[in-house]
């Protein structure tokens, strides 16, 4: 699509809730989801019987060798609706990577089309009480893994490390620059009581002293697996007028999709850059604005190099320049004029929450509910995952704002 989003600023987020990010599960994920959903519905000034639509994407509760069980280690919208004793008229889910951005767009489209009046969007992440999130005891590699695991290529960490190494080789990025990214995320996350890293900021010296595990990445470049749930309630702009919170409107969005046939988890810098720029072009057209209209950018950071990929894709700095942009203070939330790209702590500062910290921070800042870290924000962007299977959305608190 190469035109402005048809439901531009006509759908709004009207409330939210999230759980504490716990390092390991102490109860079924479904229990956490039910409490969080009830809190979000209440926060929105609604009751369960009014929620007639549910959207989510349950995939990837963990990697490693764990079995996914609905209600225990993952939570589908069907499970949630049934256990809330809701009577939905529309339940929809997204299958694949790009979970949060894609399911957000499902919720928005359902409201825009009239399939539902009030949508509950949730994301639930699991980390098992015992065992390791990542360690995989496999001895035999079948199917897609036969092309990668026997060769020593075991997943997302070496995948992003190779992309990041190519970036460093090509553009001269240093660990000192990435230290700024990680310290920014951890320092902001350390101020969030619900964050796994609450009260635990780090220094650049600590980052630099951390041993490399998969070159050029250290443990601190990776978000830590947690168990947590986030819920957002959305409705039409018309209905939002009667609800207690300041609405946050969806101006536009764009999702990305892989084009190249590759080995499983074989990510490449070229494709991230190309698909990122193509996605951003659709995004700005969809929202009717450009990066110059954005005061807050919450970019995905499951692995720290994603911050560079997104800053460049979204046009906040030229390709290959994000590491210099960061060194110049471009993302520092202590500077009033910066885009404060990790003011909500991100995943590195909160836990492995698959885009929830980014969407949450955009919502809180735009609805005026960010407390001590409240910034002057009219338009914000959040992004999730890698550009070729994730996505981005533009949110605003000024639905009458100038459209170019």
């Amino acid at each position, binding site marked *: 699509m190469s035109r402005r989003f048809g439901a531009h600023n006509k759908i709004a987020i009207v409330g939210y809730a999230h759980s504490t990010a716990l390092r390991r599960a102490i109860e079924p994920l479904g229990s956490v989801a039910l409490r969080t959903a009830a809190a979000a519905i209440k926060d929105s000034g609604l009751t369960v019987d009014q929620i007639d639509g549910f959207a989510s994407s349950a995939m990837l509760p963990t990697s*490693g060798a764990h079995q996914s069980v609905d209600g225990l280690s993952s939570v589908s919208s069907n499970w949630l609706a049934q256990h809330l004793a809701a009577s939905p008229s529309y339940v929809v889910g997204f299958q694949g990577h790009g979970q949060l951005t894609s399911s957000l767009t499902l919720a928005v489209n359902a409201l825009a089309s009239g399939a539902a009046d009030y949508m509950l969007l949730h994301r639930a992440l699991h980390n098992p009480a015992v065992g390791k999130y*990542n*360690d*995989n*005891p*496999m*001895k*035999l*590699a*079948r*199917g*897609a893994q*036969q*092309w*990668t*695991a*026997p*060769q*020593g*290529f*075991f*997943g997302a*960490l*070496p995948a992003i*490390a*190779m*992309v990041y*190494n*190519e970036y460093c*080789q*090509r553009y001269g990025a240093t660990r000192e620059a990435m230290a700024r990214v990680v310290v920014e995320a951890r320092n902001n996350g350390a101020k969030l009581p619900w964050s796994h890293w609450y009260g635990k900021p780090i220094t650049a010296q600590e980052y630099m002293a951390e*041993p*490399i*595990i*998969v*070159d*050029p990445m250290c443990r601190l470049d990776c978000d830590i697996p947690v168990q947590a749930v986030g819920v957002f309630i959305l409705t039409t702009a018309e209905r939002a007028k009667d609800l207690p919170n300041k609405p946050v409107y969806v101006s536009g969005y764009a999702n990305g999709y892989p084009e*190249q*046939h*590759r*080995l499983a988890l*074989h990510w*490449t*810098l070229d494709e991230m850059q190309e698909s990122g720029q193509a996605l951003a072009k659709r995004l700005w057209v969809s929202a009717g604005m450009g990066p110059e209209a954005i005061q807050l950018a919450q970019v995905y950071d499951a692995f720290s190099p994603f911050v560079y990929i997104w800053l460049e894709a979204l046009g906040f700095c030229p390709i290959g320049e994000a590491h210099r942009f960061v060194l110049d203070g471009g993302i520092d939330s202590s500077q009033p004029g910066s885009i404060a790209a990790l003011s909500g702590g991100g995943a590195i500062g909160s836990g492995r929450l698959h885009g929830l910290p980014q969407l949450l921070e955009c919502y809180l800042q735009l609805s005026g509910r960010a407390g001590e870290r409240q910034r002057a924000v009219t338009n914000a962007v959040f992004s999730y995952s890698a550009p070729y299977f994730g996505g981005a959305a533009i949110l605003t608190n000024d639905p009458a704002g100038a459209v170019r």
Partner: protein
Amino acid sequence: MSDRVLPVPDESSAPYWAACAEHVLKLPRCSNCRKFTLPPDVTCPNCHCLDPNFTYEKVPGRFTVRTWTIIRHSFIKGFDLPFLLVDVQLDVQPNVRMIGRLIDGADAPLKIGDAVEVTFDDLAPGVAVPAFSKAASS
């Protein structure tokens, strides 16, 4: 015998692993456009024909290093650490990319654009997986 993860050949990959066992890299080649691909797919990712009838054919020439990483901690077991993984592209068809161990060692000097050749790690009787080594002239 190695303690590494072993590949399990299936209908789509049996000729690949049989060739690897003989230390020959054969990749799926589309019968329609004659382009290589990896892994084999339902359709041809190059010409998008629905009936590619892939045949496994010996891959000509060398590969070029696009990027690499040194694995100092592995989530799967059986590897001697550290080791170096390279992401390489096939010179005669650069959209074919492979990832494998560089057998020259974790501290081998490397730069983007270096030429590498296919070699093999013998893991068990009749089981070998592709790896790479720096080409003599690079």
